[in-house]
């Protein structure tokens, strides 16, 4: 044993250990510093697919040639639709749903070109003329608090097109598409899927970066044409400050205010609810709107979730552990 405790041998042993540790450390650094990112340009590719849809739609005379008359008619009909559902709403409706007073910018993604998850706005502009047409979803400048920037994705693409004027002449034009995936488009897609598939839909919530994050979802002024988020859960339908609204006709949302804490892992679940389901109005006691929302979830989940055989009356959002 004594010969094995020879100091030279011990030093060499230590050197070998240090060498081995260094190699392990170096290999670990190499392995763990390698990251592979796959960027599939989803929004960019979607823009091109969307342009194909719009430029071959009922607005088009021929592929890539949009009719001025059909565009005018589409904008006017969309504006009338909004005016009829929300008469005399004034500036707030103008801000959220488009400046319909002047027949411009309707916040409507038409049936011939829409996507559940990805919202978009289209802007068609004559290059040598002064006419332009805008329509589609517009995210609010008021971003939802507490969510990292990566939850708000957008992309912008332009396409050279032509507008066929009423006299049959062709005017060079440009169609600009802005596409978005943001919290509002995710929530509206969740509601739409729950309603159409009659199955609960789940969305893993991004981590909250502030002490408490709130998700307040409801229809725009209690009519089933838009899904909206509002800034404060305490606000009623009459004084709500809407953050963003997306056109989603025929889907009734049971108003809810849901919350989760910093670094909590939660999922948002949209349940289809049967006709006749009883629930409490969160505005009956605004200070307890979160508790009422939770109670609504608990009671409706127990007996009122729609199945294949049922008619879906509305959709309720609940916050659950992941």
């Amino acid at each position, binding site marked *: 044993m004594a010969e094995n405790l020879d100091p030279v041998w011990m030093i060499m042993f230590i050197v070998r250990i240090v060498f081995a*540790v260094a190699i392990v450390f170096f290999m670990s650094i190499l392995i763990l510093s390698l990251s*592979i990112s796959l960027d599939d340009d989803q929004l960019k590719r979607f823009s091109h697919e969307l342009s194909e849809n719009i*430029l071959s739609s009922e607005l088009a005379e*021929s592929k890539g040639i949009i009719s001025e008359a059909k565009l005018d008619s589409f904008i006017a009909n969309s504006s009338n639709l909004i005016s009829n559902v929300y008469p005399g709403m004034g500036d707030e409706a103008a801000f959220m749903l488009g400046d319909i007073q002047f027949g411009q910018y309707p916040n409507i993604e038409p049936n011939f070109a829409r996507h559940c998850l990805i919202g978009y706005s289209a802007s068609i502009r004559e290059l040598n003329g002064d006419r332009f047409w805008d329509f589609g979803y517009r995210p609010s400048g008021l971003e939802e608090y507490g969510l990292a920037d990566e939850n708000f994705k957008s992309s912008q693409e332009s396409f*050279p097109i032509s507008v066929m004027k009423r006299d049959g002449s*062709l005017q060079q034009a440009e169609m600009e598409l802005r596409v978005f995936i943001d919290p509002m488009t995710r929530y509206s897609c969740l509601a739409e899927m729950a309603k159409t598939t009659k199955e609960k839909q789940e969305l893993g919530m991004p981590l909250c970066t502030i002490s408490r994050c709130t998700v307040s979802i409801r229809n725009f002024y209690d009519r089933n044409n838009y899904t909206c988020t509002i800034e404060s859960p305490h606000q009623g339908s009459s004084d709500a400050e809407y953050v963003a609204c997306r056109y989603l006709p025929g889907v009734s949302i049971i108003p809810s205010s849901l919350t989760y804490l910093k670094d909590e892992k939660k999922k948002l679940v949209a349940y289809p609810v049967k006709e006749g389901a009883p629930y409490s109005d969160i505005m009956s006691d605004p200070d307890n709107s979160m508790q009422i929302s939770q109670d609504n979830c608990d009671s409706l989940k127990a007996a009122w979730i729609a199945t294949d055989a049922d008619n879906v009356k509305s959709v309720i959002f609940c916050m659950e552990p992941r």
Partner: protein
Amino acid sequence: MKGQSSLPEDIGWTIFIVIAVIFIVVISLIMVGKARFDNYGRGSNLIYSLYFVSISTEPYLVGESLSFYGIRDRQFFEHALESAVTGSLESSSSMNVPAELKLFMEAYEFRRYAVEIRSGGKSVLNLDNILTRCGTAGDGTCVNKYSNDITACGIGRVEIDDAGVCSFYQTCCREEPSSIPTDATRCGPQGIGICSKDLAPPTRRSDIFIPACADGRDYYPDTERCSSASLNGEETPVCCIPITTQNIAAAQTAASAEIPLFFNGTSNYDKDSDSSIEVTIG
């Protein structure tokens, strides 16, 4: 001592276990460190990204619009069809087409565009904004004569009379593939480029390598073939591609759409013998 492990065996096992434990500890520490300090490792050279190239639809859209575009008494498509059949713009009374077509294309403010009507392999109309053409036959390009290339016009070009088109600081150069020295290095897709001198000013090269080619040529990233290339003792690290409609499409700095006009007989469409409108946007 029989039946008992010897000290060297004990040390061997100890080393093995110590290394295993150290490995686990080090990996754990690094992973915890990465989780806690999010920025750790960012900016590492070992990051690979895969990008899908979006399909360019622009030439197809412009081609479709062009087909319906009215020029005087007929639509462009009709002008194109008749000029392709008769073999010239004059024969189809379409002499005003180039000017009107230019106005149409300029409105879109494309960086580069080209529209060509082809018939039986010949060009009936060729309109583009790709180059400033010079020379008596219009087959030259105005090039900055002070660009300090290997020759006045660069490798593969010859100097010709500009016919009064070029500015005082320019000279007229024509692509002359036969003038390319045999020891010059070819590069780019299908070897359409030539490894050339980098004409970027030294200040631009100091921080980020931004190569530059002479007028009438486009940079193409092909460091594999050009990084060690030289000619006449001078380094030629930059791949430069002569700017033509075909070349910029091949280099994927532009996209082309071909709209067949008519077929010859019952055979399949053949670009070299049949007629078409070709739109290139870059």
